[in-house]
């Protein structure tokens, strides 16, 4: 392993919060991957009396919901949905934000003007309201949710990448590449982008967290994919029976909270480890 990677790993491993976050994430991932093995049946199937409290009947450690569905099965399948939508929508947002930011920062001038006005426009529109409208209009499905989340989350990426390109394009190695006649496309992709990667990685890890929150909020409002069980849907369905069965809303909520918290901790850890010279004053 090269020395830079080892020092990065050493710094990351020193951050207790980040390690805890990584551990939680690993458990959630394990749960998501094992969901089809542990609960091969559909999580929508009625399996027992409704409103079983956790532990009331053996084999249903987390009880059953209003329709007699297994809460543990829902939780496991929901983990998969949360992670999948979080990761894919972040990837889509990056694929919009990185090229736009790179073009704006690299070429400057009119290109920059036009692209930044567009970015500002999307930043002005209230995020969550736009996501609701998009999913409602396109009909709720996994792909419309991914698209809506990506559409509302790319502007910060574009701004960050633009800033990085603005400062990096004045470096000597870029001038050297221009002098030897490299094409703009190669300079952008092969020279500048690799050097701008670390802040993008940090931002991306935090975006996955926000995307998971957004997805759960949409499902809570009844805008989830009707075919997939998700944590937000479980809370939304339990809302009207909060007085009788509080655990139905508490359990999936804790799952979301832990996952999002873990991603934030990992993001902060990555930030400190990738930019040691900028490490936020802590001790």
């Amino acid at each position: 392993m090269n020395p830079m990677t080892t020092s990065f790993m050493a710094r990351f491993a020193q951050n207790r919060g980040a390690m805890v976050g990584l551990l939680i994430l690993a458990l959630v991932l394990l749960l998501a991957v094992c969901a089809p093995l542990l609960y091969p049946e559909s999580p929508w199937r009625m399996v027992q009396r409704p409103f079983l409290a956790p532990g009331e009947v053996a084999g249903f450690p987390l009880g059953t919901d209003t329709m007699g569905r297994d809460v543990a099965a829902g939780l496991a399948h929901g983990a998969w949905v949360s992670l999948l939508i979080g990761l894919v929508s972040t990837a889509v947002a990056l694929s919009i934000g990185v090229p736009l930011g790179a073009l704006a920062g690299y070429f400057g001038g009119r290109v920059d003007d036009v692209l930044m006005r567009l970015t500002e426009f999307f930043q002005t529109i209230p995020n969550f309201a736009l996501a609701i409208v998009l999913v409602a209009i396109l009909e709720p499905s996994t792909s419309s949710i991914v698209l809506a989340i990506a559409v509302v989350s790319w502007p910060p990426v574009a701004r960050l990448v633009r800033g990085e390109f603005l400062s990096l394009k004045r470096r000597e190695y870029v001038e050297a590449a221009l002098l030897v006649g490299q094409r703009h496309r190669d300079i952008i992709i092969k020279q500048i982008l690799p050097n701008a990667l670390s802040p993008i990685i940090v931002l991306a890890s935090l975006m996955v967290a926000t995307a998971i929150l957004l997805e759960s909020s949409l499902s809570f409002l009844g805008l989830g994919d009707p075919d997939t069980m998700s944590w937000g849907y479980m809370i939304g369905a339990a809302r009207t029976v909060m007085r009788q069965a509080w655990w139905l809303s508490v359990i999936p909520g804790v799952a979301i909270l832990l996952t999002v918290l873990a991603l934030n901790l990992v993001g902060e850890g990555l930030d400190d480890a990738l930019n040691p010279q900028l490490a936020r004053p802590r001790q």
Partner: protein
Amino acid sequence: MRYLSLIGARLAKSVLVLLAILVLNFFLIHMAPGDPATVMAGEAGATDEQFLEDLRERFGLDKPLPIQLMHYLGGVLTLDFGYSYRQQMPVLDLVMDRLPATLLLTGSAFAVSLLFGILAGTMAAMRAKRPSGSIIMGLSLLFYATPLYWVAMMAVLVFSVFLGWLPAYGYTTVGAQYTGLAYLWDVAQHLILPATTLGLFFMAVYTRMTRASMLSVSQQDFVKTAHAKGLAPGVIQRRHILRNALLPIITLAGLQAGQMVGGAVLTETVFAWPGIGRLMYESLMQRDYNLLLGIFFFCALLVIIFNLLTDLVYRLADPRIKEAA
């Protein structure tokens, strides 16, 4: 004079953004499932072919898109946002009816989150090296990661269901005919949980911003000078650091606060708060797309007005900022 022309420029820019949002809205109506006439009818009038024909006629739905767009923009300029056939009321009336409740909710949530966010952030910055500072930052990270709607439900569970201290839903007590102070007290009691739970997430954001801003100001030379002069640390924190750290916080907070309108959809749904967020949820449930898009436009309008106000306050508060926008 210069200030006035700046305001003019900002206003012109806001009008452009609004126009762009209207165009976006127009295309969203056309993307909605079913033909635009049924969308405008909110599907309720879908059985009445004559009625749909009237709508097509009135909005020129058989004409080319650019002409339809002009129709639509013309309607909005005369404050015609269409009619909600589900609710049997014009969209504008519905929104205006619900707007005060949302303004009260988001306004209180903003005030609470900014006040406590700056307080907590200042404490965290002053105690950056002590456990109490870490505890504040840990809590703010926790609130940052908690789904808004879930924290609202948990608050209802604890403070209404288990403890019975505060009402769980609504704007006023149903059936009680309070007037005067008793009425205000009643509304205030109903407001506490929604405003606090909506504010928590934003409070977490402001806490982190305040701490970061204060820590970065505290590294500047004039702070070192103040220390060298032998000023008391408390005085330096308040007079030198906080004052200088506050301005960027207020601008960023203003921009962030626009997003509160979106969050209000969740809060109002949980608390049955009769604002435009709840109206948005109702329009979703009823697939009343025309109403949904009307509300979306007003949400965006609120955000733009809020950003404009923040901008003006900021320029007034710090005369060093000349232009740059």
